[in-house]
Structure formats: structure tokens, C-alpha cells
């Protein structure tokens, strides 16, 4: 226990962090809450110091009834539900394989980690080029690398992201992109978890003639479960906050030319900030509530299934 006469010193040392937190975290949260429940908020009145707004839930009602928001919600949920299981399973598979091989392990680890340190907008642009029908050279010459590869297997070119492409083609591209982008972090965590499992468990399993599949399901997965839970929970949170990937591939307007909107919750909040601060705040709180509930469910399930 710090003696009381030195207490001011403790506060002094804490001051820089507290000041930053107050300005950039606590105040925005408070302000979001306030703005969400103020009706007919206007930034001009706010700046003029006239804060005589009425309190109410009008913003929430408006947001929930607005078709654009519902679309964003569906897009977000769809992307999350598709990408989290796929990326987790793939990451588990790759991590187990990486852990099993000795030569080139370091090199492959580095290669798998590259997407993590690459700008997602830049990757998005590369994906855009890869999935294009019309390449970047001349429209007639190239059809994008993905369609070229598919062509080798006799698949007709698919319109992934260009004008007239279907919603599901767009979603497929997004899922591939998000999964690919999410893999490195998950592989890193799971590989770390795998390497910390005591080798003796595997020796014991060998002595007991355990088939490989059973070793995986009965020993590896349970002992890895804390890491799996962590990866799934952060995956869901990240999934609900998906935004930059869509901008990266489809640009600011977040849709294939003339196609359906692929906007997500975060995108909606960002767009609404322009002149509907109240609705943006309400949407942000709704997103928070969804993430909160899903995370609670995740934690509840993992508590039952996880061995720590």
C-alpha cells in the first residue's frame, strides 16, 4: 500500500494516461450515449452551446426502421457467420500442419504472417484486380487471374465484382478476402498454443496406440480450446466491425457498379456521421449491444467446453 502522503505522486504518474483516456475514450463514449438519446440533434446548436434537446428513442426507432440499416445488418451478420467458422477451421488446419513439419517451418510461418502486416486497402485493391473480369491492361486482352485460372479447369469466367455481378458473387469474394486476411493472426495464436502443449501427452497417446484422428479430436483440440475460444471470440468481434475490406475491393460506395449495397454496420455509422450524428450514435450502440450479447454467448459456451 502506498503511503497517503505519496498519493499525489501516483496520480501524477497516471495523469498522462488518464488525460488521453478521458479525451479519446471516455468523452466519446459519453457523447455517443448522449447523442443517441437526444432527439433532433444538430451540431450547429451543439457548437452554439444550446443543448436544449429532448431525450427520447426516436433515433433508435428511425435506424431500426430504415431499410439501408437493415441491409447493412444483414450484410454484417452474413459475413461474420460465414468467415469466422471458415477462417478458424482453416487456421487450425494450417497451424496443425505447420506444427507437424520441421523443415521450412520458420519460412512458412513468415509467409503465412505476411497478410497481417500488409495494409488491408492495398490487399483489397490487389483482390479487385485478381477478381476482375476486365484486367487493367485492355478490356479485351485479360480477364483477371482468378478467371484465367478457373478457365484452365474449364470454368466459364464468373462476373465477380464488375457491373452486373450478383450479390452472392460479391459476398463470395468478400468472404475469401476476409478469411485470407484473418488467417495470419489466428494461425499465430493457434500455433503458439500447439507448441505449448506438452509433448508427453502425444507420447502417452502413442504408447496407447491412439489413432491420429482421435489424438486430434480428444487431445489436441481440448488442450487447444482456450486458444480456440480466444480466436473465435475476437473473430466475431472483428467480423461485426468489418468495413475496410469492402472499401478496399468495391471502393467508397461499397457496391459493385449498379449492384446491391454491400455496406456494413460500421460503414453505415461512418456514412451517417456526415449529417445524422444521432442516428450514427444509435447505430453504434446497437452494434455494441449485438457484439456484447454475442460475446457473452461465446463466453458462456466456451466456459462449458473449454479446459483451462
Amino acid at each position: 500500500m502506498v503511503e497517503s502522503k505519496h498519493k499525489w505522486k501516483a496520480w501524477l504518474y497516471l495523469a498522462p494516461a488518464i488525460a488521453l483516456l478521458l479525451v479519446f475514450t471516455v468523452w466519446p463514449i459519453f457523447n455517443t450515449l448522449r447523442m443517441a438519446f437526444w432527439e433532433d440533434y444538430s451540431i450547429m446548436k451543439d457548437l452554439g452551446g444550446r443543448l436544449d434537446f429532448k431525450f427520447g428513442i426516436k433515433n433508435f426507432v428511425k435506424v431500426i426502421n430504415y431499410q439501408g440499416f437493415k441491409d447493412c445488418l444483414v450484410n454484417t451478420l452474413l459475413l461474420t457467420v460465414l468467415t469466422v467458422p471458415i477462417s478458424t477451421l482453416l487456421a487450425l488446419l494450417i497451424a496443425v500442419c505447420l506444427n507437424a513439419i520441421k523443415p521450412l517451418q520458420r519460412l512458412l510461418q513468415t509467409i503465412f504472417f505476411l497478410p497481417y502486416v500488409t495494409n488491408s486497402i492495398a490487399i483489397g485493391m490487389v483482390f479487385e484486380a485478381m477478381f476482375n473480369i476486365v484486367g487493367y491492361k485492355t478490356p479485351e486482352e485479360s480477364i483477371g487471374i482468378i478467371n484465367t485460372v478457373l478457365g484452365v479447369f474449364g470454368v466459364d469466367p464468373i462476373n465477380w465484382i464488375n457491373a452486373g455481378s450478383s450479390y452472392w458473387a460479391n459476398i463470395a469474394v468478400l468472404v475469401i478476402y476476409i478469411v485470407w486476411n484473418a488467417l495470419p493472426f489466428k494461425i499465430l495464436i493457434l500455433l503458439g498454443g500447439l507448441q505449448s502443449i506438452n509433448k508427453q501427452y502425444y507420447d502417452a497417446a502413442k504408447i496407447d496406440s491412439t489413432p491420429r484422428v482421435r489424438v486430434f479430436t480428444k487431445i489436441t483440440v481440448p488442450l487447444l480450446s482456450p486458444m480456440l475460444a480466444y480466436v473465435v471470440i475476437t473473430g466475431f468481434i472483428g467480423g461485426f466491425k468489418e468495413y475496410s475490406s469492402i472499401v478496399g475491393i468495391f471502393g467508397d460506395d461499397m457496391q459493385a457498379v449498379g449492384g446491391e449495397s454491400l455496406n456494413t454496420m460500421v460503414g453505415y455509422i461512418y456514412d451517417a456521421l456526415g449529417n445524422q450524428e444521432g442516428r450514427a450514435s444509435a447505430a453504434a450502440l446497437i452494434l455494441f449491444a449485438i457484439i456484447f450479447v454475442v460475446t457473452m454467448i461465446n463466453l458462456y459456451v466456451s466456459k462449458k467446453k473449454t479446459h483451462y
Partner: protein
Amino acid sequence: MKVVLQNLTKIFPSRNKKANEEVVAVNDFTFEIPDGKLIGLLGPSGCGKSTTLYMISGLQKPSGGRIFFGDDDVTELSAENRGVGLVFQNYALYPHMTVKQNILFPLQNLKGEDKLEKDVMLDRAYQAAKLVQIDELMERKPSELSGGQQQRVAIARALVKMPKVLLLDEPLSNLDARLRLQTREEIRRIQKETGITTIFVTHDQEEAMSISDMIVVMKLGVVQQIGAPQDVYDDPTNLFVAKFLGTPPINVFEGEVKAGKLYLDDVAVLDVPGVEDQPVYAGIRPEGFIPDAFGPMICNLSGVDVMGRDVSLVTTHPASLNPVVRSIVDADAAKNATGLTVSYSLKPHKVFLFNKETEARVYFEVK
């Protein structure tokens, strides 16, 4: 099932390629372990005893030599197919499974014609648990058990599939002193009851001596001596074995044999007929000293340790290689030990001579 080791050798390649220093962990180990016996592999750390055990289990591949279970050559067989039971030093119980699940695990792996019905498996698991007296703890997780209980679970898990050979790697090293005594008796009892050929590794000579039918003393990958514990203790083949066995340890002196007599510090202390004149190491067991007012061996008395029935006299002697010379004598005989010195005569069969260069035993005729 008897286990035969033929010229078993394990060489670990050097990690540093330039230095090219290979480590010979086990060197040319040949031994036939009779069926149904309890064998202790004994030696200081790094002597290759665990490596030998792991080669028998199949977890490590020998660099040379063969291993037979009965008449079957199992050298090329992987650990999965050898049907041994192994108790790891840290038990390696699956932490996410209950005791019951842990014990059932090997049975659930059985395939083909060995496959068991569910209730047969449960039956066998409970039998194994009863044998090691943990049938009350079946629903607990390993983390909720004491070290001794975990150790029993590990034994039950190894026994439940009725292995041909049971291997134990330092099974008692994680237990406290009292539990260790108790558990080693348990191991002896379980081994007797099941009659499974059992090989266990330990660095604790007392442990090995007390429960083994036979002990194998190893040093730096080379087998020094194999035999019944008492025989090895009474008749060590070299200085290392003599020093390694026995508590308190053997007293070693620098001495010389001249004209059939052993001289320590230029005093003739014992007749050693049939030995050529040579400088020797003389090992004298603590129980080999007889307090005798007219005895030839005179030591400076520095203390008396009372151990109950017996008394340990702590003395010094100029020719001794150990800082003190310990003798164990009758409590009555020790009553006279009050002066500055104490005189002993020696029991010839408790005195061992070793060649000074090779440290091999030099035998003399005991009358």
C-alpha cells in the same frame, strides 16, 4: 513376457555440426529380463537409463542392436504396436479428462477383434482402479488429485490394457519422502499381483534395492553390473558400483597391498591373501568396522550420530578419500567411544579392493 536386449546402442548426433561430438547415450547393452520380474535401471542422471526405457517402449529408435519381446523382434515396431504400458515421470495424465476417462482412453483405442463392449471397458477400468486403490476418485480431474494419487492413476492407465511389459520412468521422483516409501511398496505389490514384467528407472539406489528383483547399474551409457540387489551390494565389480550403492555410502581409502597385507597410511589393517603388490583403492562398508580396542585401524573420532538401534561413528582417517569415515556399530559398542580415537578391526567380506588405474575389483581370498 521376457524382454531381451541385444547390443542395444543409442547415439545422439551432435547438435553442433562442426564440433561433431556424438553423444553415446547407451552403449552395447545386452541383457535378458526374465518373465514376470521387477527390474530397476539404476544410475546417476545422464547414464542412459531413461533412454534405454524409451527404446524398449518404442518412443526412441535404437541406433544399433535388437529388442525382443519373448521371441518376437520388436526393434522396428513403432510404439503404437508394441503393447507396452508406460508411466511417465510427470505422469502425463490428460488434464481435460476425468480419472475414469483417462483410464478408459487406452481401451477405447482398441480396434478390430480386440474391440471391447462399453460395459466391459468400464469393468476393466474399475478393476485397474481398484488395484491401485483409486476407485473412489474416478470422477475427479487430475488437477484435483495429490501427486501420489496422480501417480496411481498413471499406473492404472498403463495397466488397464494389460500390457506385455510395464515401464516406469522415475515413478517416485515427484513424491514426498513418506509417500515414496508407501508407493514403492504399492508398485511392488501391484507388480506381484499382476505378474507383468516391469522395468523401472530410478537414480535412487535405495528405491531400486528395496523393490527390485534385479538391478542394472549404469554409468555414462555403459552397464556396470547386473544382479540381485543384495549380490550387487555385497559383490560390486568396480569402484563406481561400490560407491553408488549403500547408505551411508561406502568409505573409500587410498591404500597399498604389500606381501598379502592391506596398508592404509602405512599401517597394515587386513590380510588380503592372493593379491599382488600394488597401489589400490580400498572400500569399506560402514557396517564393516568392528570396534576393537586392539584393532589395527585407528581413526580420529569427531562425532557420534545416534540412529536408534545402531550408532554411526563419524571419524577421520588420513588415507580416506571422503572427508569423514562413517561406521555403523552396535549402540552398546559405541558407549566406549569416548576418547579422541577409536580402533577397529575389519570384516574381510565388507572390504573391497579396486585397481587404482582401472577401478576394477581386485579379489582376495576371504577365509
